[in-house]
């Protein structure tokens, strides 16, 4: 997903956290939950997701987690893709200098405009 196709474990764990947070949020949302239940899906084990989240948090770099939580407090998605050099969170174009930083797999790059963590789709 990054331009050099070598995602670091650090970044992958943050991705896992966001995927899991979306699952938890949607399973906890009364409207969405009701909608899925009408389709035939049950959500009896929300506690298992919460427990998985606790375990996952232990594997995440503390600085990365602080950054993620800070962004997630004010924005629905803390991590967003970049497409055509545009942040898909705020739709502002990224400077060329930002794009060149993607060669470092350990570099957590954030959007200068909205502050979200960025990743590159190939």
């Amino acid at each position: 997903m990054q331009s050099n196709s070598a995602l670091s474990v650090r970044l992958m764990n943050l991705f896992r956290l966001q995927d899991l947070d979306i699952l938890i949020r949607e399973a906890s949302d009364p409207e969405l939950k009701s909608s899925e239940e009408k389709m035939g899906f049950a959500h009896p084990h929300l506690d298992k997701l919460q427990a998985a989240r606790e375990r996952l948090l232990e594997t995440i770099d503390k600085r990365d987690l602080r950054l993620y939580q800070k962004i997630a407090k004010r924005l629905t998605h803390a991590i967003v893709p970049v497409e055509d050099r545009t942040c898909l969170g705020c739709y502002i174009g990224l400077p060329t200098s930002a794009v060149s930083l993607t060669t470092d797999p350990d570099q957590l790059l954030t959007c200068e405009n909205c502050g979200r963590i960025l990743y590159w789709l190939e």
Partner: protein
Amino acid sequence: MLVVGPRRAWIFSGVEVRYVSESLREVTTILHYFDPNLFCAELESRTKDDVLRELTDRLVQGAGVKDPDLLYDMLKRRESLGSTGIGKGVAIPHGRSLAVNELRVLFARSSAGVEFESMDKKPVHLFFLIVAPPQDKRNEYLPLLGRIAELVKEKKVRDKLQACETFEDLADLLEGKFGAVE
């Protein structure tokens, strides 16, 4: 040529042309979401975990999804919330993940059936894997999930799905079912 219909558009242009325009969107049928590269006539796996892994791998191969582990983890966690086996031999594993950049749907069959912890405890023969990115710009994911869940409620449709040997069979079924309606 583009608005003749989804299947013809695939054949003529070789690309999926959904949502070329808002007017085209209005006539979108459920078939638009399916892809010949994401059709599996017979799953090899026989257990729930193996099926999730196989579905993930097939999606990665067929749709260029870059990270199978991320996708697999999300699907496993979704199953831990509650099985997506909705009964009557159907499962619809689904969720949102950063592993995909657009809505993806994969259809797969298992003639032997797979124990999937379904609500009715019966083995699953028909699988629809639906994965969407976190940002669902066109708000397609949940409506599609609902349409597929509704579709498979009909026994006649399930029987026909089980008889689908090729993507063309599936396309014919979906066009026949929805083409005239939408």
